[in-house]
């Protein structure tokens, strides 16, 4: 036993650790995740297993934070790290620094995971989608000020509708800082709108936001697949159009946005209505208005004409004619009446004249009497005469002049 070395537990454990660490300082291990737990400190504990064996693993929070996807039980993965001993438990384990899904890219897995998570939350629901303004007054654009996307959008905007105000919030669209800058810029436009409301100045609030970048690799587009960007988009009270990469590229921000455009140019086509089209539409409406009003008046004119020539409106003329006839009749009757009246009056006149005749002294003459005048006066008595006076005696048929020769008075009369 003298030659025999006796280790303390600590010594042997340290030696094992050294051997393990020297042999397995950087290995890749393939297996299926099982018994995954995350401690309150954020460290991940799990095991990798295959048909026959199990390997304990730990991934510290600082390493885990670099994972783009979330490891889950049952997931086939590749882990890289070193194998060492946890002295206190005398337990060897893999200290994982990287973890990747097996058989596919971790980014594509992360994409699917986040998409599923947000979908379950209802972030992509159609009911949440806001409608884009028909004619925006002020368009906000979140993109790089030096990228192809802004050039494409401004080109389309100038061509279609140069009268719409555009504000650009310049951000990085790739790299690790991009996601925060993009999310902040989307929130920034919403804050800006609040601010315009408060200051009540000449600032026009934005009524739509375009979140965009041009084409690139999956890694380049990655910020637009980040949860923070998706949440900023869905929290925006201003409608958001997402246009990331090329037509074939779908990002989480596309799903979260109110409208997904396949390219930046397409986003601009959607957001900036063509002035020419709108003016044409107005002109057509104006022409149709004019024509419709003209037709209305023309049809009314026709109706008026039809009425004019209809019996109903000709009737007044007939009434007039009838009235004229009646007047004629009345005239005739009046004439007849008058004539009749005249005759009656004439008859009466004749009768009255007869009476008058009878009363006239002249008619007395007719009956054989005569009137004698002297000195221009009717002689009523013998004493009206002197011898030698001239007397004019009127008879019915003439006048006789005579000279008084002798006057013989009747006494009894003279005494009266």
């Amino acid at each position: 036993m003298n030659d025999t070395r006796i280790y303390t537990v600590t010594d042997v454990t340290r030696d094992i650790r050294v051997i393990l660490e020297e042999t397995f300082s950087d290995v890749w291990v393939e297996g299926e995740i099982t018994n995954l737990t995350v401690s309150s400190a954020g460290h991940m504990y799990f095991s990798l297993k295959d048909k026959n064996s199990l390997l304990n693993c730990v991934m510290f929070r600082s390493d885990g934070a670099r994972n783009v996807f979330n490891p889950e039980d049952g997931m086939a993965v590749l882990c890289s790290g070193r194998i060492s001993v946890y002295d206190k438990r005398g337990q060897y384990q893999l200290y994982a620094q990287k973890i990747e899904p097996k058989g596919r890219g971790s980014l594509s897995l992360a994409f699917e995971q986040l998409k599923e998570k947000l979908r379950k939350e209802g972030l992509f629901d159609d009911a949440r989608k806001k409608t884009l303004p028909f004619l925006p007054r002020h368009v906000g654009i979140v993109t790089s000020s030096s990228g192809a996307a802004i050039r494409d959008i401004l080109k389309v905007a100038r061509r279609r509708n140069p009268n719409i105000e555009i504000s650009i919030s310049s951000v990085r669209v790739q790299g690790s800082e991009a996601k925060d800058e993009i999310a902040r810029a989307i929130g920034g436009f919403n804050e800006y709108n609040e601010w315009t409301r408060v200051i009540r100045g000449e600032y026009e609030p934005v009524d739509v936001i375009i979140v965009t970048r041009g084409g690139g690799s999956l890694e380049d587009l990655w910020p637009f697949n980040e949860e923070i960007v998706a949440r900023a988009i869905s929290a925006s009270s201003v409608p958001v159009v997402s246009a990331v990469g090329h037509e074939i590229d779908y990002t989480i921000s596309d799903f979260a946005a109110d409208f997904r455009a396949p390219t930046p140019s397409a986003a601009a086509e959607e957001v900036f209505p063509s002035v020419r089209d709108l003016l044409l539409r107005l002109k057509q409406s104006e022409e149709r208005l004019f024509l419709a009003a003209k037709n209305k008046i023309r049809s009314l004119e026709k109706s008026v004409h039809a009425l004019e020539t209809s019996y109903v409106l000709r009737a007044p003329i007939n009434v007039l004619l009838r009235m004229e006839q009646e007047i004629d009749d009345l005239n005739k009757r009046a004439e007849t009446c008058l004539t009749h009246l005249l005759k009656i009056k004439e008859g009466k006149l004749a009768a009255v004249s007869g009476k008058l005749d009878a009363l006239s002294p002249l008619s007395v003459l007719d009956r054989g009497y005569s009137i004698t005048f002297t000195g221009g006066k009717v002689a009523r008595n013998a004493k009206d005469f002197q011898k030698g006076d001239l007397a004019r005696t009127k008879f019915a048929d003439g006048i006789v002049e005579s000279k008084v020769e002798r006057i013989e008075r009747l006494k009894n009369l003279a005494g009266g």
Partner: protein
Amino acid sequence: MKNIDFEKALEKLEEIVAKLEKGDSSLDTSLKQYEEGIGLVRECREKLGKAKSKIEELIKNDDGSFRKEPFSEK
């Protein structure tokens, strides 16, 4: 009427056109519709031309206010 939404104005205009084209309103109503329609056409045209044509960069100041700077394409 100043701030009536362009889209609403256009919709209303096209509604009026359709009504007027049906031609079953009285002359008085038709003329009123025509006048209203022409008014909307004029209003919409003004709106299309009125908006400000500006391309600027929006920058948030430290105090939470905003400023705008001319945007130059790089």
